């Protein structure tokens, strides 16, 4: 069982992290933040799974903290965004 749970954690992390790497090259800053958000949820899911796999209950606390602060960093990001509505400069040199 533990092996399966660790495997599931790995799968979720792999999927969300690869998604993030793809999106990091996107032009829209908002989409990068969305990918980070997804990675945060994925990391929480992985932590919960790893906690169940290793029977160390405190691992769940880390997941709790990640979820508590997930919206926090997102709020910080959108504040920076809203300060300059019109001409948010597109990131340069990140094509390919």
């Amino acid at each position, binding site marked *: 069982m533990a092996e399966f749970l660790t495997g599931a954690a790995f799968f979720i992390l792999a999927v969300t992290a690869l998604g993030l790497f793809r999106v990091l090259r996107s032009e829209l800053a908002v989409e990068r933040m*969305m990918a980070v958000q997804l990675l945060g*949820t994925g990391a929480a899911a992985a932590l*919960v799974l790893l906690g169940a796999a290793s029977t160390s209950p405190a691992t769940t606390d880390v997941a709790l903290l990640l979820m508590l602060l997930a919206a926090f960093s997102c709020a910080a990001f959108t504040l920076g965004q809203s300060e300059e509505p019109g001409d948010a400069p597109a990131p340069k040199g990140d094509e390919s």
Partner: protein
Amino acid sequence: MSALADLFTLVMVAGGALLFLAGTLGLLRFPDTLSRLHALSKADNLGLGLIVLGLLPQVGSIAGGLKLVCVWLLAQLSAATASQLIAGALHRRKSGR
């Protein structure tokens, strides 16, 4: 009984993991930002929800189970407000004010 619980965990966790895959694919493949946001919240809500549900039979104590449910509830709150914030930022950007 234990085998049944294990099977339940297996199915639920696998379902959750697949939802994360679906969410990521949506984020990468959907045509515009708002529908990508929509794909994202599916993974947030359902994916994590299924995993928490699947793990509930595996935890030994009631407190541990409550903590798991708390993780999911916090994720609900975070995901809902975060997508609102992102959509709002996007809207302001589009409308040019």
